């Protein structure tokens, strides 16, 4: 039984519950937000708050029981994880600002060091290129507007892998299926916020309904501008870099202070399925022309 002081006021409402039972809608305690089917949920990852502790990477691996990837040191930065993969669904990038405009950087931006850290994750795009590419229906949009690969349906064709504009989804050599972040679909169903967001000690990763997060993010950018960080901007919100070329928005979006490429993100990704029709029609026109040529040459004559 928790005593005053340490416990959150909302938690005190649950003190009379059976401690063996899960708390219904625990996300209400941890984020102040209920998780209800039919609403869009996502992440707002604020890089100005990230301290590079990688608690999100660890929490994700533990909850989702993901095996370790390559354990070698990268030798380039504190980032030894290097990339998102079939078995790594959160990845903290470390970019050090050393040189700017040909000069050695001697000052720091306000409220930040010269280490730019970002916890990368599947963007749960809307529309999602991986989902649009999937021929089996293994990848689907859940009742929380997140994008999930159904492991009992995926046959490992691998078409979602080059379709993703962010290099997120990957085939596992262990089981021959495509894997990526599920935005903790199982936890959402149980009223829990995703493991990475819950473990983040600085609230750099915030979980909630996308509409609420968008408001929050706009206010955060204005706040940072007022504080003297004029470079703060959003990546993946409607109309911003990252949500371009037919991709309406990223349900997991970011607040950045440098060019997207610094964080290994594309400036203007595009929706691949847009290219299918023009390509196919041009091909069919070519074939029609060649068929006419065949008739003119008279391939049918003996």
């Amino acid at each position: 039984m928790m005593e005053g002081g340490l416990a959150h006021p909302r938690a005190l409402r649950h003190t009379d519950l059976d401690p063996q039972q899960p708390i219904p809608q625990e996300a209400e305690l941890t984020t102040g937000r209920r998780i209800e089917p039919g609403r869009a949920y996502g992440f707002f990852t604020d890089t100005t708050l990230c301290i590079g502790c990688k608690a999100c990477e660890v929490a994700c691996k533990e909850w989702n029981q993901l095996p370790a990837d390559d354990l070698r040191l990268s030798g380039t930065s504190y980032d030894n994880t290097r990339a998102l993969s079939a078995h790594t669904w959160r990845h903290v990038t470390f970019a050090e600002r050393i040189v700017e405009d040909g000069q050695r950087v001697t000052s720091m931006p306000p409220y930040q060091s010269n280490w730019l850290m970002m916890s990368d994750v599947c963007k749960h795009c809307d529309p999602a290129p991986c989902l649009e590419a999937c021929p089996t229906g293994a990848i689907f949009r859940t009742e929380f507007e997140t994008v999930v690969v159904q492991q009992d349906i995926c046959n490992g064709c691998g078409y979602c892998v080059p379709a993703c504009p962010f290099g997120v989804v990957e085939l596992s050599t262990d089981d021959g299926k495509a894997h990526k972040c599920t935005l903790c679909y199982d936890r959402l169903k149980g009223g829990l916020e995703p493991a990475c967001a819950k473990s983040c000690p600085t609230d750099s990763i915030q979980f909630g309904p996308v509409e609420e997060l968008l408001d929050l993010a706009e206010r955060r950018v204005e706040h940072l501008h007022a504080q003297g960080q004029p470079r703060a901007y959003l990546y993946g919100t409607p109309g911003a870099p990252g949500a371009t070329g037919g991709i309406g928005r990223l349900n997991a979006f970011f607040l950045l202070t440098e060019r997207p490429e610094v964080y290994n993100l594309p400036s203007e990704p595009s929706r691949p399925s847009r290219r299918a029709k023009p390509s196919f029609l041009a091909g069919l026109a070519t074939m029609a022309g060649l068929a006419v040529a065949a008739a003119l040459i008279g391939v049918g004559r003996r």
Partner: protein
Amino acid sequence: MTAQPRLPPWRGETYHGLPSLKASSFDWKVSAYIALLGLAGSAQVLAAVARLTGRHGEEDGLVRRARLLAATGSTIGPLLLIRHLKTPSRWYNMLRIVRPTSPMSLGSWLLTAFGGLSALTTLGALFGRRSRLARRVAEVAQGPAAITGAGMSVYTASLLSSTSTPLWAAAPAPLAAQFGAASMAGAASALALAQRRAGEDRSARRLETLAAAAAMGEFAAARVVERRWKQAGIAHAATHGRGRALLQGGGKGAGMLLPLAAHALSVLGAEGRSSRVLPELASLAMIAGGAAMRHGMLQAGNESARRPQDSLRFNQPRNARR
């Protein structure tokens, strides 16, 4: 919405040189499938054209051989694709849904239809002499088989273009034209070989002419594709290493320029014994070159996906690309 701050222009920096995309798992099995089903699909187009315009009976000659080529391709092709799946036992999940946004999904259905129709035309090729019913069935199936065959010849380019891999995404329409022309050049060459072997040299000559015309079309389309790559500043993977060897040496050299020269020589040269070797070698080179081109396209595309300087450049705002 808050105003976007002015960011410094991108100067080619990458994240520790690490890839920003994942390369596809497409390997030789996929490139072999693309080349083989291109041949098979275009063979059905030729069978239909021959039936419509010529005096070839459907039970003998060109039409029969084209239908058998299509049957061979549509039998081996799906096996290659299933082998390429990382969970092959679930191949049938491809036929679980129809996803209009996915060329892989539509392609699976197209392949199914093409395979079925090719099986029907094969009835005509195998039993046409004895059975009127087999002839009738093949005749009815020939039109749809040709239409799905045209789709088979080009949908693979559309499938590659509908990814985020820079080299494939950069030129959707010209790439499909290149694949289609390569398919027709390959099918005409394969059937020319068969006609030569059967002693139908005049028919073979016409097919060789068609193959040469298609190869010239392929050459032109390939030039447009390359120009798009250069404009986007992402040509590196296609102009260096294995990509260069397969696309330039294999696809263009062995698949287009050499056979074109050989055909020209044999036309100019006297009619004689030697005039048969040259065109046959040219036809073989064209088929091999088409396969090399497809494999080179997969190789170079995967390489471009692994090169962050290419993928990040490709995703720059259009006017900022170099």
